[in-house]
């Protein structure tokens, strides 16, 4: 079995919810040993977030938690107590990375801020992930994914022009923040490999959301144009849209060569071939991208009869054969049944003692020499004994005392 890319790295993970745990999931799935430090009793609040099997809440059966915490170990520890902090520091002495997502100033209040720890742990990469970062006027403000998306300049440009701006579905800013946090950890580890020093890395969810802004800010910074939301249309071409078809929806993208152009002179355009009407190449809308963007309702009328009489599969397969990059709009059920993802073995299964055998998303990318690991999430405190007794050398009786005082 090849080693994971990060098999030499140990991470102490105090983060909770989605963003921090997604960061440490990416570390754990590619080989790092991640010890998740959870508050005794209830554990990571994500354990309380659904979905649950049969909608019965259970701290070991949250689908979200199970997904976000694969390949990690769980230790319960109340780091806000002096005794808990002592144990945490013993863990840190053997660790490379600390990830935390507490409100700004909280760790320092417990004597566990970066400045408190850097003297004892000069090699530690200490990563904080918060709504707005450690500095700046909004540093103490709160946010969830919706707030971050609102302030990213992406949401203003998402939705219908006559309705309120719309967030992207799910809680995308949490995941974007997790990915940016993961990049921060990796960059700081490479820096440490070279310079021999740890450091503090400060990640803001609001900035992570804003970092995906393709050109809303750029259109202003480079030309004074303020873009608004306009259905699913793209800024520089039409049709680039999600449109209804016989059995649902399909992404219609003419692409660079779909309509008549210098390259298609003398032949039928892919779009005319798709719509099975070669006369369309003479239609004025087929020759002007600008007109198509402005008179898009007329374009939709041209497309409608074909789309409404064909399934998404027929449409995508025919269009792709004509070299137009049409795409599906799958539901989660469609994704799980998708033949391509099946052939690639994307979804993976893992057995969990409380939740049973479940299907999970697999590798977000595939590394030839240091592959993704399939694993499961830990039970709350599952690794207390292994870690505290086995690693740190506490006596088993010590665990009883610590448990009695709610420290573990």
């Amino acid at each position, binding site marked *: 079995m090849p080693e994971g890319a990060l098999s030499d790295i140990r991470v102490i993970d105090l983060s909770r919810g989605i963003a921090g745990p997604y960061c440490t999931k990416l570390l754990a799935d590619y080989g790092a040993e991640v010890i998740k430090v959870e508050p005794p009793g209830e554990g990571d609040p994500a354990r309380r977030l659904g979905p649950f099997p049969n909608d019965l809440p259970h701290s070991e059966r949250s689908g979200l938690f199970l997904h976000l915490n694969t390949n990690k170990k769980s230790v319960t520890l109340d780091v806000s107590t002096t005794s808990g902090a002592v144990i945490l520091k013993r863990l840190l002495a053997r660790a490379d990375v600390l990830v935390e997502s507490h409100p700004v100033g909280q760790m320092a209040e417990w004597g566990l801020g970066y400045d408190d720890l850097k003297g004892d742990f000069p090699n530690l990469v200490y990563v904080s992930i918060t709504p707005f970062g450690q500095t700046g006027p909004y540093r103490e403000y*709160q946010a969830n994914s919706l707030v971050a998306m*609102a302030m990213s300049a992406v949401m203003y440009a998402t939705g219908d022009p006559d309705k309120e701006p719309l967030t992207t579905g799910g809680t995308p800013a949490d995941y974007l923040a997790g990915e940016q946090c993961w990049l921060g950890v990796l960059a700081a580890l490479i820096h440490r490999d070279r310079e021999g020093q740890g450091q503090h890395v400060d990640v803001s969810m609001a900035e992570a959301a804003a970092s995906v802004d393709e050109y809303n800010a750029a259109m202003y910074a480079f030309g004074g144009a303020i873009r608004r939301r306009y259905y699913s249309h793209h800024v520089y071409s039409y049709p680039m849209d999600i449109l209804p078809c016989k059995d649902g929806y399909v992404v219609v993208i003419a692409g660079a060569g779909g309509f008549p152009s210098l390259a298609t002179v003398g032949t039928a355009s892919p779009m005319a071939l798709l719509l099975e009407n070669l006369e369309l190449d003479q239609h004025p809308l087929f020759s002007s991208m600008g007109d198509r963007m*402005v008179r898009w309702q007329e374009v939709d009328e041209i497309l409608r009869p074909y789309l409404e009489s064909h399934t998404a599969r027929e449409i995508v397969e025919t269009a792709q054969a004509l070299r137009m990059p049409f795409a599906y709009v799958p539901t989660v059920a469609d994704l799980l049944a998708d033949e391509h993802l099946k052939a690639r073995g994307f979804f993976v299964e893992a057995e969990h003692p409380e939740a049973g055998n479940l299907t999970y998303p697999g590798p977000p990318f595939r590394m030839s020499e240091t592959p993704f690991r399939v694993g499961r999430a830990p039970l709350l405190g599952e690794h207390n004994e292994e870690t505290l007794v086995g690693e740190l050398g506490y006596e088993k009786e010590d665990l009883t005392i610590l448990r009695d005082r709610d420290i573990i």
Partner: protein
Amino acid sequence: MTSLPLEGIRVLDLTQVYAGPACTRILAELGAEVIKVEGPLRLDITRILIFTDNEGLDMPHERACYFSVRNAGKKSITLELNHPKGVEMARGLIAQSDVLAEAFSPRVMKNFGLDYESVRQVKPDIIMLSMSGYGQEGPYADYGAYGMGLEPASGISEITGYRGGPPIRSGLSFTDPVTAFLGAGAVLMALRHRQRTGQGQYIDLSEHEGAIPLIAAHLMDYVMNGRIAGRLGNRSPWAAPQGCYRCRGDDRWLVISIQDDEEWSAFCRAVDHPEWEEDERFADVLGRHEHHDELDELIEEWTREQDHLEAFHLLQRAGVKAGPVFDGKDILLDPHFKERHHFDIVEHPLLGRRPINRQLVANFDRFEASVPGPAPLFGQHNKEVFQGLLGLSDEELAELEQENVIGPGPITEIPPELWSEFLKLPFEQFLEMGALRAIEPDYKQQLGLED
């Protein structure tokens, strides 16, 4: 401050448009030397997206905002990979690179003779990152893929939309930046692994797959309960009321999210409506989920009279999650993003000073990962790279240029009016349609960019 973590790392970057260039820009922000390769006759298509900034101007392909943002801080060379000499030169560059990044359809690199097996012959410990729409293998591997099709294909659009409405795409190609982050992280891990073991590797990144974990909660709901959740607009199962509410002014909005009793109570007091707290319908969490529509009406009655920024501060100071909906201008002027250097001001020879957002937003204590410089001009670094790395003489370069293996091709000979005529977007009509809020000719002044 010490040196950047990727100083001394060279990336040969064959990618175009968004995902690939955003990925290699992260590596550039971390100090890598990124050499962007374009064909002398086939430039990165984003160079010729005509926006207001390059319409009708001389050398429009050097002024396009989209290109300028994605490629800031890179070097540019032109190299024809459909010519055997071009491929030979690419091999020579790969032999002196640490990372090779590409985002072609899977068959293309093989056709060039630059697939991983061939590339390894030249540089055994190369790290090769292939970013593609659907991955290197599988039934859709050869599908054409645009970023705007991959967000829906990943399942994200199906859960994005107003309640009862159709699926909607985000206001950008959402999977592109996700791919960029994942690709950059994969390269960082591979570089560490190479440092430890001397071993390079191949990375197959499917944009489609990379984004699927983002909707895991929905996937798990189907896995566990066979349920396909409907589109929720801006609502959430985890908070109520939660929504986007109209404020005073033209198209001004504020999002508000209230999770528990404490936040609800804080909200009612902050907006000076203690009677809402007394209202039995809204007394507990379940009631607030059940009577969400009524709450939305009441809340919007209040927000309509408020300035969205003032209301944002008022609610946040009371401990309530809230955020103004920023447009592309607002975020550039926001004091918080400014103080955290989310945008770096970069000086470009033709465009002057422009703010460009960071692609890597983590802030580091020991080094500053900022936007490393302006986007390169087309083929700007041909001489530097081909002479410095391949040792070619002026005569050899002139000959290669004659043969269209390198060089700027015919692109600079196209008159700007012609560019614009073909590629101009109908901005005035966009304004009328409501696809643009405004076009402000004095934007540089407003952004403080005038010298």
